């Protein structure tokens, strides 16, 4: 009786604990439409859908959200001809649930198993296949896991700062040669990322996707879950007016928050960033991808749109404008009209920096006759990235 009373007294302190079940499938038959319009093979995980017979995977793999103290049962059914696993990156699971074939287990065709873990720390995590990781992760078998601070899901962590909006950005890269030559990808140390994504989207696919844009009003605070599962490092450059402060990394509270407009994530790292803008912004977060073998040279850039509607004035109060370009589409020359001297950057559809040059006030002519036909993005500091087409 005494023990029962003690248990009842302690019960509120033990905390909420729910069993959360997720069912995923793994397959190797995905195709995604790249930004330059090419159907590209990929591998991945998908949420099991009992209503369909032909299960589908997604790029990136599904975002999995759980609450602090949840007991998670993550079932994987492998529907592909090769072995796969789920490595719960950063969740500090037991050896059996770690997803490394040599120390836990792997799933062959039509095998299924349940990975179990307890959600002990709020924060941002990853999951990916750990079979031939360098190939399977590069082919797309990667996703994000978020643990919310339950029951106060509006707080970053217990007694931590609050937020009222939440966004998720998973950076990744691909070496498309591997996607199209997956049976003979060549020496693995020669991987050279040439397609750069945030949430599986590149270039204008990302920038034009309204579901990816951060939308806030004055007084809002947005939590950004940011992770990098690519081979390259990525650099997030926030507009200074967004007042970006980084509070957590790898599911742990930083000793001191970092008040910095630039955040670099190396492969496998995750960060929790709060944006608390105090003024109108219509612009973008720049996401630069840099390779690690060439002294950090930036090889690709993506943009995440950010719209902050200040003082209830609405989005028509733009301060940033598009560059004045014509004709667009073009085949021979592109005229760029400017009132000031600008450093111009041109990226290809993969987000790879293609050309840089300076323009003077007035009308500047860019010879594009030798450009490969396709879509390009032109950018300059203080202007929104603009798409132009070479026919």
């Amino acid at each position, binding site marked *: 009786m005494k023990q029962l009373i003690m248990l009842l007294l302690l019960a509120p302190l033990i905390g909420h604990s729910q069993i959360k079940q997720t069912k995923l499938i793994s397959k190797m038959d995905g195709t995604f439409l790249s930004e330059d319009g090419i159907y590209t093979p990929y591998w991945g995980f998908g949420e099991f859908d009992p209503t369909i017979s032909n299960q589908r995977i997604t790029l990136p793999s599904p975002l999995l959200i759980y609450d602090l103290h949840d007991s998670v049962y993550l079932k994987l059914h492998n529907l592909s001809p090769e072995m796969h696993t789920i*490595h719960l*990156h*950063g969740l*500090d*699971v*037991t*050896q059996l649930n*770690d997803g*490394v074939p*040599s*120390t836990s287990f792997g799933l062959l065709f039509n095998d299924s198993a349940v990975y179990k873990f307890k959600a002990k720390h709020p924060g941002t995590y990853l999951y990916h296949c750990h079979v*031939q*990781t*360098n*190939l399977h*992760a*590069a082919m797309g078998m990667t996703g994000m896991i978020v643990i919310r601070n339950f029951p106060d899901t509006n707080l970053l962590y217990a007694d931590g700062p609050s937020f009222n909006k939440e966004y998720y950005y998973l950076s990744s890269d691909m070496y498309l040669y591997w996607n199209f030559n997956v049976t003979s990808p060549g*020496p*693995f*140390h*020669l*991987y050279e990322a040439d397609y750069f994504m945030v949430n599986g989207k590149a270039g204008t696919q990302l920038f034009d996707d309204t579901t990816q844009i951060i939308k806030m009003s004055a007084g809002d605070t947005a939590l950004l879950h940011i992770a990098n599962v690519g*081979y390259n*490092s990525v650099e997030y450059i926030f507009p200074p007016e967004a007042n970006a402060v980084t509070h957590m*990394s*790898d*599911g*742990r509270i*930083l*000793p001191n928050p*970092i008040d910095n407009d630039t955040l670099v994530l*190396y*492969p*496998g*790292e*995750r960060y929790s960033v709060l944006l608390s803008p105090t003024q109108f912004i219509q612009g973008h977060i720049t996401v630069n991808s840099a390779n*690690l*073998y*060439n*002294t*950090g*040279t930036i090889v690709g850039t993506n943009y995440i749109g950010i719209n902050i509607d200040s003082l209830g004035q609405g989005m028509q109060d733009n301060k940033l404008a598009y560059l004045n370009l014509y004709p667009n589409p073009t085949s021979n020359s592109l005229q760029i009209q400017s009132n000031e001297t600008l450093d111009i950057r041109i990226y290809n559809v993969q987000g790879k920096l293609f050309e840089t040059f300076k323009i003077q006030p007035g009308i500047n002519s860019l010879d594009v006759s030798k450009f490969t036909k396709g879509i390009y993005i032109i950018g300059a500091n203080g202007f929104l990235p603009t798409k132009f087409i070479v026919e």
Partner: protein
Amino acid sequence: MRNLTILALLFLSSISSFAAIVRDTLYINRDTVNQAANLIHYCSFNQTETFELTNKPLEVNENDTLQVTIINTDSLLHTFTVNSIIETGNTIGSLDTATFQLEFSNNGTYRYYSDVSYGKLLGASGNILVGYSNYTRFFWNLFEAKVSLSDSIAKGLTSQIPNYYKPEVFSINNLIYPNTAADPLGFVTGAVNDSIIISVVNSGQFVDPFHFHGYHVTIIDVKVHTQILNWEKDTFPIVPGEALTVLLVPDKPGMYPVHNHNLTTVATGGYPGGMITRLNITP
């Protein structure tokens, strides 16, 4: 009797707090080694004049003086450099011997190396761990090599890493996985709730983002990328020239990999290979 005991303890503790001189000897050796079918030239600081792949880690207590005698068996001069500790007057001529005294005022990891191109680019670089003598200690020395470049450096044809640099061989203590998992210096073993110290230097030219499976660690000392001091992480960058110390206190038993998460580095000689090692934690 109680007072006598206290006096004795005070006496003993005053003896133990005396700064001591710790003497060590290192030989600078060169050789060529076949690493996963790649011929790599190495230059190492070894315990004897017989070439060994792994640079010998040095250990000393805080406030002790480390007296190191360097015997250079190479045909070229070298230096014995520890940034901010010994940076000048530290050359050792070919086939020469020199002795240096080093004093460290803070616990942590320092990197010693030969600050000539054919020294540092061929891997003549190692760990010095100051303090933590009561902890279980391990050492990781990260390095990568490219066959053609290694050959050119060894022959004196170049003294620089090119901007476009894609090495084939990635190693910990100049060993590639699975050999790393048989290396008593680097294969981390311990028990639940142990306080385990891992001393890490990056002797290569790559940023090496390391990922711990199973556990978070605390970065308790870092010399170059100081922003991450005292961060609790499972994945963090180890930049070129870095010397850092992590504390691991395992909360559960298990055998887990630890590896570079730039996945070009984990396929030396085939996957899994290269910059991977393991933790083996017993109950």
